[in-house]
């Protein structure tokens, strides 16, 4: 079964410091991985995706993610955190079975808190 795990419920970081939000996955076949962000009372906003190619994926708002096949990880990173980055972050994997092209399996989310 496809699944993702986000081992940290919350990550705290000071503004200006680098941040990492962890995600590990379990899939059969090729992994199609995504990161979404959710601000209070808002829907999910797409940050970036890994389909194939370079292991370092660059996305919106200065975020990037590193795909590591041997460790089955897809950690979200940003070199310098902003207070406005404080939000709930979700890692997701697409269900690769035929027909379920829009079925994403989400992790439980990690709350990022950036302190001034």
């Amino acid at each position, binding site marked *: 079964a496809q699944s993702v795990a986000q081992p940290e419920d919350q990550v705290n970081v000071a503004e200006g410091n680098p941040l990492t939000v962890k995600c590990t996955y379990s899939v059969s076949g090729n992994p199609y991985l995504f990161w979404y962000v959710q601000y209070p009372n808002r*829907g999910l906003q*797409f940050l970036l995706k890994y389909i194939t190619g370079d292991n370092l994926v660059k996305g919106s708002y200065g975020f990037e993610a590193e795909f590591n096949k041997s460790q089955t990880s897809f950690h979200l990173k940003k070199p310098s955190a902003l207070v406005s980055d404080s939000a709930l972050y*979700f890692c997701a994997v697409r269900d690769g079975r035929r027909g*379920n*092209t*829009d*079925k994403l399996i989400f992790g439980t989310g990690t709350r990022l808190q950036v302190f001034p």
Partner: protein
Amino acid sequence: DAGVTQSPTHLIKTRGQQVTLRCSPISGHKSVSWYQQVLGQGPQFIFQYYEKEERGRGNFPDRFSARQFPNYSSELNVNALLLGDSALYLCASTGQGGLAVLTFGAGSRLTVL
């Protein structure tokens, strides 16, 4: 361009009632999917519709149903509401099948008392 729009934004129902949630996809998007996000959890897939046909169904009881209209808008219906149905219901659309990115609406927050 308008994004994915959902209505109503908030609603309160009592146990046993029925609810209908509505979603309008981004113009030109033919695929709509529905997700349930219970407080403190990640979204869970309920349905996907493409060109008015069901493409996928998550592990939800038959009380949950959906449909897609010729203009690609969609409705999610939940019958015989339970307290556990209280959640944020998210709609997402994509331009075409395959590996397109889902664009989510702001959601409909349902509270069941």
